[in-house]
């Protein structure tokens, strides 16, 4: 079968291709931040649909793992990046044409674009031909590219573009302006008036003087006076401009479709590799996870929250890694412990690992065995919003009910600190009902709570606790470990840290 796509070996793997909006769990897992970072500077490629299209089969994931391993080679990456830059420049020119009205101007931008396309494609084929490629994706692509560059259509296009550009570069003309009249003629070797003036007064020169020239806007478009001048130039050089007309008609659709798609799709890999590079440089490990469509025996070693790490990598390098595993009948990680102990981060990490794995990407961690879910759901408490006139608790319950209604045994659910805005009594009652329903569904989930009781609700629940430094309660380790819930919360210690105890606050306001 001939090469189609560097992202999807089979067209049906892109089943979610129509999705345009991020699912609601993106914001909760901070995947929206990851997506924005990936897409930033790559707007023209519109990578979002790919980030929104998780894969659901093991072979589809492996196809991408192979391609990514090829791209780890810096020569492969360099060749691909170089081609991308060439085509980006070309598209900039083509985009200009849409904004322009003058014929000769549009045609010239078109010619310039075609020339860039030819040079970039030739150079890419040459570079990639010398590289050692292993993936099904890249070897298939190389074969396609070589056939294309050798084709008659392509070689003719490249030669004609070059010749025509050389002829246009030789054109010289003069403009005479008097009042509102303009006359355009061939240049006949008249002297440079500015140089003449400078020469006349050169004998008075004493030293460096201020430059009084006005800076002019370097716009790509033309006003209609410039356009009329160009029209006159066209009449002065009729053969050259007739050739230009002809070129644009004959090569109206010169960009190859498959190359165009490749150029866009490969950016998805480059974006992700670029995103994780600073994290790897900071010493964090990424791995190709072992994925399964059936086994719920999952786990990860030294994993971390990729969005948090990306934020910290800019400021300071300390990222805390955590591990987890679920065996036998275990399905729910119940996370408890002091506030600001890393519980939310852990929950996000769990969700991110699974989502990134389903995109066929390396995941943040030393090793990982992960499940390919049918869908993912999250429930993180939302800010109160006047637009929503329903009560907070009612709203929260309705959303959880929707999740439990839509989730299947193949789904993944991440819930964070629900019912924090209600009474302890209510939270206990509601929380145990929800956890019981989660375990009844036999799905994989994380449940973050400040209520210890859920951690030992049934055999599907595994207790994970955010640990603290015993001598310094306000300090946090951000380590989440598998052990029984211990009921400690250290809110008062934190209040002291912020100078908000009764005594300190009075002193502060008085001062």
């Amino acid at each position: 079968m001939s090469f189609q796509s560097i992202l999807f070996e089979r067209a049906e793997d892109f089943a979610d291709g129509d999705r345009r909006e991020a699912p609601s769990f993106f914001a909760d897992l901070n995947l929206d931040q990851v997506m924005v970072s990936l897409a930033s500077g790559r707007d023209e490629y519109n990578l979002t649909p790919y980030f929104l299209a998780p894969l659901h089969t093991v072979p589809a994931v492996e196809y991408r793992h192979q391609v990514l391993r090829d791209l780890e080679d810096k020569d492969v990456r360099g060749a691909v990046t170089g081609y991308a830059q060439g085509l980006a420049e070309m598209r900039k020119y083509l985009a200009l044409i849409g904004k322009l009205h003058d014929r000769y101007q549009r045609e010239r931008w078109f010619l310039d674009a075609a020339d860039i396309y030819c040079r970039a494609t030739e150079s890419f084929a040459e570079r990639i031909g010398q590289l050692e490629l292993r993936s099904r994706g890249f070897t298939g692509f190389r074969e396609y590219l070589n056939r294309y560059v050798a084709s008659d259509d392509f070689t003719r296009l490249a030669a004609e573009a070059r010749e025509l550009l050389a002829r246009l570069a030789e054109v010289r003309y003069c403009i005479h302006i008097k009042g509102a009249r303009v006359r355009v003629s061939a240049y006949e070797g008249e002297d440079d008036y500015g140089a003449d003036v400078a020469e006349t007064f050169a004998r008075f020169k004493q030293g460096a003087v201020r430059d009084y020239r006005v800076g002019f806007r370097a716009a790509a478009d033309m006003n209609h006076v410039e356009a009329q001048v160009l029209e006159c130039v066209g009449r002065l050089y009729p053969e050259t401009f007739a050739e230009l007309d002809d070129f644009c008609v004959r090569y109206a659709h010169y960009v190859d479709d498959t190359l165009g798609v490749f150029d866009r799709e490969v950016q998805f890999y480059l974006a992700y590799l670029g995103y994780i590079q600073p994290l790897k440089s900071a010493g964090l490990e990424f791995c190709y996870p072992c994925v399964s469509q059936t086994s719920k025996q999952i786990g990860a070693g030294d994993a971390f929250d990729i969005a948090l790490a990306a934020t910290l990598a800019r400021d300071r390098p300390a990222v805390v890694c955590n591990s987890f595993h679920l065996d036998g009948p275990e399905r729910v990680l119940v996370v408890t412990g002091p506030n600001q102990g890393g519980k939310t981060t852990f929950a996000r990490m769990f969700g991110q690992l699974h989502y990134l794995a389903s995109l066929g990407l390396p995941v943040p961690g030393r090793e990982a065995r992960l499940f390919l879910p049918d869908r993912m759901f999250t429930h993180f408490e939302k800010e109160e919003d006047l637009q929503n006139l329903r009560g907070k608790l009612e709203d929260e319950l309705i959303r959880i009910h929707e999740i439990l209604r839509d989730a299947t045994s193949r789904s993944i659910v991440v819930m964070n600190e629900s019912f924090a805005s209600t009474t302890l009594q209510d939270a206990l009652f509601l929380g145990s009902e929800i956890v019981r329903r989660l375990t009844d569904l036999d799905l994989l989930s994380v449940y973050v709570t400040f209520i210890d009781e859920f951690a030992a609700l049934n055999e599907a629940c595994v207790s994970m606790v955010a640990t603290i430094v015993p001598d310094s309660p306000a300090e946090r380790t951000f380590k989440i470990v598998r052990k029984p819930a211990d009921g400690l919360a250290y809110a008062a210690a934190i209040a002291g840290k912020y100078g908000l105890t009764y005594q300190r606050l009075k002193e502060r306001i008085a001062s």
Partner: protein
Amino acid sequence: MKAFLMHRDCDVDLASDLPPAADAVTQDLELGTLLAAMAAGDDFLLGRARRAVLSSLANPDAIIYRQQVLTDAIAHPDVVREIYDIAVTAIMSEKRAFFGLLSTSPDAIMYRSVQVLEMFTGMLKRLRAVADEHAASFRSEGFTRFFGMLTSELDDDYLHLVEGHLKELGFRRGTLISAGLGRGNKGLNYVLRKPREQSWRDRIPVGNRQGYSFGIPDRDDNGQRALADLRSRGLNGAASALAQSNDHILAFFTMLRAELAFYIGCLNLRESLAGKGEPLCVPVPSPAAELALTARGLYDPSLSLMLGGRAVGNDVAADSKTLVMITGANQGGKSTFLRSIGLAQLMMQAGMFVAAQSFTASVRDGIFTHFKREEDATMEKGKLDEELSRMNGIAGQISPGCLLLCNESFASTNEREGSEIARQIIRALLESGVRVVFVTHLFDLAHGLWTGKDGTALFLRPERRDDGRRTFRLLPGEPLPTSYGPDLYRQIFTAEPKAAAVSSTAVAIDR
């Protein structure tokens, strides 16, 4: 020439920093909706409204100065809007004249200056005409002074003098420039050329050189400008700049517009609210020491603006109270009430009308809000930590004589610890002379304060009628240990027929 419509003796502040609490207050009180109604889609009005509402006046006399100007504006909205439109037109026309020019050649600067000065003169005459016609019907100190100033400073002699100064200037000569074709066939390497021995005029009739001519029609301003630009590129060496005498007049219009913008915003808001039958009142600002806080029919104008109908109003009798505790069930109108108090205080101290049938309150030195928020998107802080961090910020700025509004503060940890932190903070604030209005469902906290209450605390809770319906009205009353979690859970998670039985359970709990 000073407008002095916002302050008796100084210009309105155009650019200094808003109070540090401004962003939090804006977010927590949903100020955006109110400001949007004042702006009515105009970004400038929005900016001025925001600045005025958030820069509270602490002096009752200064508040009354504005209230009187506003009263005049409400009595003569058309006149005030006309003056505002004159200022806006003057400023916008000046801007357009500036942006309409593509070059900064001396010809262009002169052309522009004359045009702008002609336009400004017309606007000053219009202002004079408004003063002549309407000054007598205005009563406020602010407007009386303003109209008096226009009449004396812009007398006929002066306007005549200005018109005498307006003159035109223009000079042209033939120019010969050479060029080549660059990217997109745009002109490249413009060089001023020296015509050979004979003048250009002598050469044309000879006609021995091929050339093409065109003219720019007189009415084609863009063409004229484009031609001037083209010539400037060739000449680009001799330019003498003209003085910008228009700047002082522009500064006057700028200040007039900025000051009137606030009153235009008030007129817009009044039309929105009064238009749907909502009451508005001129509030009575009382000295800080009196600890007044009394209102009838106090409602949240932001909520009202979003609702189809009218908002529910509340009566408040909290004179001499330093603490107002609001407790009770979710969805009972507590947050709305809290916002209505905050907005009324802000609007009063901006010199505006207030959303109530009547409102009397002591001025406060500053208004602070501490509302429960969604987790920090930068992820570095847990919820309680984030809350304490914000309270820490407030503690650093708040002083005796300020007002603090808390909405479900410290509910992000468990009930016992949240209550303890809040208790210490409330006690310290009250003893320091800060007035506190606190919404909470922390029963432990509310109950403790009720038990130890004296005459300076007021306790409110949502009214619940016998049939279990909520009225969104608050009445004085002891905090109740009720919760509605199980009630809501059964409604949402079980089939419809059982819902009827559930509501009777809720009534039983309430009683």
